[in-house]
């Protein structure tokens, strides 16, 4: 089949989101099942694209409108994008199944549309090969995320959403100024061509532009000075949406940061920007871990833990070495699995027991043993115990950090990991060794998803080689810019 059909990845969620108002008559249940069916279809397309890219080893270049790259917009579905589009689709499918049962706030039809468009935005951000198109998809992701954060329509949700909106608005303005500067000095918006021409750029313009872009994306990627929105939004959003935020919305922002950073490698002032990013990432890890320690609400605690892991990924991606990028991508995959597991479990408990405060989790091992088991696996993995998946990626990140000469950063991250172990062990203690309770029935579909994810955690922990080889391919897709330029069939334009 023709590679251009990969554009269905974008077309299908759009088409089905626009179709929702016309099938409003199906009723709530119908729309929820519709959502699950569409995400399953999307998973199918993503799996096809994944198989295509990894079996031929060549990226799929989708040219919108049939115009060759610098003239038209292209989607670049390389090793990284194929892997992550699949993850986005799978996690969306799980959350769609979860929302069949969990989503009760009216109006459901609008929830379905926003859900699909959030998935679309993340897919587009990961797949696009044009810097302004990246901005458009970022806004799609961000605006649907604003709406979904406030979806519960409580005061807290509106407050979190407003915080997100104001930071996001500043971020997107900064990003756009950065794009304007880069366009002004190079005359093109295509990422491959920017990478090609970056060497001739005026270093001051490049530095200012790149720093503005990094700041703009840092809002989406939850890096330190601009991540004040994240814990609030994670806590206040509907449980299904929190899973999506943590599993792929952040990843899309991180990927965009890394991609743009490595595209501008040839710029003279590149290393200054890298140092800035390393500092931001390390601060993210430390600040978030200490904030997590004093949380009373489990969902908020895991949100902080998620932010600190994201900081670790950003640290790895900003090292500027092949090993760092590979380890970062590996950690992204592991983090997506583990945090999807944790947030799904916590959300399930939150709905079943009416809240996510620490007291509700006491005695969970007696009340909901399957969920508690899955949550334990997730927590142990998040701490980084050997034989669970995060251990491997964390070790690789730390080694890469030492190799790149950031020993102070590695030391700080190790210290923060100890803090992480403290609060996760406290959480496990509360689940198994405190409190009493009656055994409750656990839903079949949710338990299956949770156990599947837990099994995935253990399987990757014992046999990390397959995912590691995928991550290496995906990492070199980001790091090896020369190959990226060669893969995009650039057309000669002008002088």
């Amino acid at each position: 089949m023709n590679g251009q059909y990969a554009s269905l990845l974008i077309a299908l969620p759009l088409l089905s989101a626009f179709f929702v108002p016309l099938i409003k008559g199906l009723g709530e249940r119908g729309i929820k099942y519709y959502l699950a069916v569409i995400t399953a279809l999307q998973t199918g397309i993503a799996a096809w694209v994944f198989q295509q890219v990894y079996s031929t080893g060549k990226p799929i270049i989708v040219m919108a409108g049939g115009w060759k790259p610098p003239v038209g917009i292209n989607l670049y579905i390389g090793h990284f994008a194929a892997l992550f589009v699949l993850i986005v689709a799978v996690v969306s499918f799980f959350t769609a199944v979860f929302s069949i049962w969990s989503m009760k706030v009216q109006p459901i039809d609008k929830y379905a549309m926003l859900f699909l468009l959030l998935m679309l935005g993340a897919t587009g951000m990961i797949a696009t090969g044009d810097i302004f198109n990246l901005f458009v998809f970022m806004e799609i992701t961000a605006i649907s995320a604003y709406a979904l954060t406030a979806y519960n329509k409580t005061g807290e949700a509106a407050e979190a959403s407003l915080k997100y909106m104001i930071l996001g608005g500043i971020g997107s303005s900064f990003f756009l100024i950065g794009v304007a500067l880069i366009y002004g000095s190079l005359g093109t918006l295509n990422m491959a061509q920017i990478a090609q021409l970056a060497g001739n750029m005026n270093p001051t313009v490049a530095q200012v532009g790149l720093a503005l872009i990094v700041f703009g994306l840092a809002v989406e990627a939850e890096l330190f000075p601009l991540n004040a929105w994240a814990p609030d939004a994670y806590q206040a959003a509907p449980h299904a949406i929190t899973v999506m935020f943590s599993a792929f919305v952040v990843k899309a922002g991180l990927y965009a940061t890394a991609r743009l950073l490595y595209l501008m490698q040839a710029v003279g002032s590149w290393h200054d920007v890298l140092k800035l990013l390393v500092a931001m990432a390390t601060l993210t890890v430390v600040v978030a871990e200490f904030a997590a320690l004093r949380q009373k609400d489990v969902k908020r605690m895991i949100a902080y833990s998620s932010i600190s892991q994201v900081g670790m990924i950003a640290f790895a991606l900003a090292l500027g070495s092949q090993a760092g990028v590979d380890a970062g991508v590996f950690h992204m995959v592991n983090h997506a699995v583990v945090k999807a597991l944790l947030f799904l479990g916590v959300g399930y408990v939150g709905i079943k027991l009416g809240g996510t405060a620490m007291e509700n989790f006491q005695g969970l091992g007696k009340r909901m043993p399957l969920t508690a088991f899955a949550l334990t696996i997730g927590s142990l993995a998040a701490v980084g115990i050997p034989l669970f998946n995060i251990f491997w990626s964390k070790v690789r990140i730390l080694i890469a950090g030492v190799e790149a000469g950031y020993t102070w950063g590695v030391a700080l991250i190790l210290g923060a990991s100890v803090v992480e172990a403290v609060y996760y062990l406290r959480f496990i203690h509360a689940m198994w060794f405190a409190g009493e309770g009656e055994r409750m029935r656990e839903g079949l579909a949710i338990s299956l998803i949770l156990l599947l994810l837990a099994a995935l955690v253990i399987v990757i922990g014992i046999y990390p080689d397959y995912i590691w080889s995928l991550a290496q391919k995906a990492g070199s897709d980001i790091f090896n810019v020369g190959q990226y330029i060669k893969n995009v069939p650039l057309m000669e334009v002008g002088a």
Partner: protein
Amino acid sequence: MISVYYFGAISLILIGLYAVLVKKNVLKMLIGLSIMETGVNLLLVSIGYISGRSAPILSEGIGPNQAVDPIPQALVLTAIVIGVATTAMALSVAIILYGKYGTLNVEEIRRLRG
């Protein structure tokens, strides 16, 4: 010497940023955000301007060498619409906030913290 258009654009961005940073009223912050977006749009269009050329509508004997750059203008069209979309979303959230808390002061609507 910096051009007057650049000066205007940077001033709008800074004034908007000032409002977002310092003001405590939600609607004021959103007005600041909106002004900031206008500034960014002005910046983009002035980057695409070429002295002495006319609008990129190629009729009436205007050739390709007598028109300004069309791309920034296309980008700004997109950016304006995105800006109004964000503003509308933000305002509806502000309406909910006012309904729940009866105030628009960000200091008084801090429930989530720590």
